[in-house]
C-alpha cells in the first residue's frame, strides 16, 4: 500500500511495467488522475478485521 503522492517518474515506471510505454507528455496528462487514485487506494487499505473475506470468495459450486 502506498499513500504517498505520486510523481511522474514513478508513474511512468508503473505504466511501463504494465506495458504502457508512454511519452512524457502522456504521463504528465495522467498524473492528476493518479494523485486522486492514490487517495482512493489509501482509503480501501484502511484496516479491516482479519476475518473479513473478499466479496469474490471462491464458490466451489460455480458453473
Amino acid at each position: 500500500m502506498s499513500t504517498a503522492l505520486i510523481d511522474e517518474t514513478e508513474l511512468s515506471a508503473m505504466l511501463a511495467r504494465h506495458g504502457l510505454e508512454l511519452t512524457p507528455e502522456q504521463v504528465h496528462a495522467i498524473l492528476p488522475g493518479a494523485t486522486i487514485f492514490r487517495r482512493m487506494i489509501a482509503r480501501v487499505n484502511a484496516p479491516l478485521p482479519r476475518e473479513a473475506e473478499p466479496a469474490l470468495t471462491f464458490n466451489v459450486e460455480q458453473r
Partner: protein
Amino acid sequence: MSEILTIAEAARRIAIKQLSPVELTRAHLDRIRRLDPSLNAFLMVTEERALADARAAEERQMAGTLRGALDGIPIAHKDIYNTAGIRTTAHSRLLEHNVPARDAYTVKKWADAGAVMLGKLATHEFAFGGPSFDLPWPPARNPWNTEHFTAGSSSGTGAAVAAGLILGGTGSDTGGSIRGPAALCGIAGIKPTYGLSSRAGILPLAFTLDHAGPLAWTAEDCALLLQGMAGHDPEDPASANRPIPDFTNLLNQGVKGLRIGVVRHFFETDHRASDATRAGIDAAIDFFRKEGADVRDITLSPAADYHAVGYLIMITEAFTLHAPWMRERFNDYGELFRDRVALAATVSGPDMVQTARRRRVLCQEMAAAMDDLDIIVSASAPGEAPRIEDVTKWTNMEKPSFTMPFNVTGFPAISLCTGFGVGGLPIAMQLVGRPFTEPKLFQAAHAYETAMSWRARRPAMAD
C-alpha cells in the same frame, strides 16, 4: 403526429387500433431528422429496419396477435449492445467497423417483443470515456440546453428519450451510466439488481459492476421495458435463475406503509448537492410521508468508501479487458478513456484483494441497513447538467459518486426527475430497493411521478 407519447399510452392506443405503428415510427424518424443534428444522440439510424419492424407490428395489430406492451414501440440501443448485422462501435475508433453476428440477449428480447429498432445511440467510449471530442463521432448534447452535458455513459439514450426521438432505449450502468443521464436529461432510468438482466452480448466495461437496464420518460415505461429485458441467460454467468415478477403489478398501490430510509449524509455532507437538488429530495420525502410512508434517516459508511471501492474495481477490470489494445493501439483510444483506464497500472495485487474485502463489508452494511426498509432515498447527481466543456477528464473521480454505492452492492436503483434548478435544467433523486424488489421500487417511483407535474414538461426543442 406531433404529440410525444409514453410507452404505456402508445401501447394502449396500438392495442385498440387507434395508433398505427408505422405512423408512429415515421413520426419518430422525422423527429430524428429534425432534431438529432443538434443532439448527436444517434451514431446510426436504421430507417429501413425500423420501417420493416413497424410494418410487422402493424400486421400483428391488424391480426389481433400483438405480443404485448412493446409491440410497435420505437426504441434504440446504446452502441455497446451487439446488433446482428448492424455496426456496434462502442463509440470508438477501435470498433469503427465492427459488425456483430448475433444480437445481445436483451436486444433479441426486445425484438421478439415487437419493439421497433430505430438505430444505435451515442455512448461514452466503451461506456467510460466521455464526453470526448477526439472520437470518430461527437458527444451527445443535452436537449434541455445543447451547450450542456448529458452525463454518461448512456448519453445518447438520455438525450434521445428526453427529446422524444425514441420512447425508450437501452443503457448500461457500471458506476451510474444509466442514472446519471436520466438525472441530467430529466427522464427515468433504472439500474436493475445485478443479475436480473443479462449482460451477454453487451461490450463489457467491468464484469462485477456492469448492469443492463432501460431509460424512458417515466418509471412506468421503465417497468414495461425491463419486463421485456429481464430473464435468465445461461450465457451470462452472473444471470440470476429466478422467476421474473410482473414489474407493473404494484404501480397503483401508493406508498402507504412503505418503510423509507434517507441517506442524508451522502448528499448533504459527503458530497453536498445543489440547493435545488436537496430541496427536491426534501419535497419528495414530504410527499412520501404525507402519503403514509414511514420515513427516517439512516447512516451508512461515507460515500467516499463506496466510491473508492467502485473506482478501483471499475478501472482495474476495464484495464484487464483493454490491456492488449492499450499496449498496441494506445493512441487509437480517446484521451479520456485511455488516461482513466491507465490508472490501473498504479494498483497492486494486495490493493485489489483489500478492495474486494472492503466491498463485502459495504455490501453487508447496506443489506443490514435495509433489513427493515423497503426503499432508500438519495441524490442521483449533484445538481443540474454542467456545460459540456466544463467537464474534465477527472471530474467524476474528484468527489464521491451518488450512484456508485449501488453498483458496488448490486442493489436496484432508479433515477427520477424532481423538478428544475436555477438554470432551468432538470434535477433528480434516486430510489434504491433491496435485491430483486423492482416492483416495489416502481411502486414508489410511479406514486411520486404521477403526483408531480414534471412529466408534463418537455425540452423546448421537443415541443
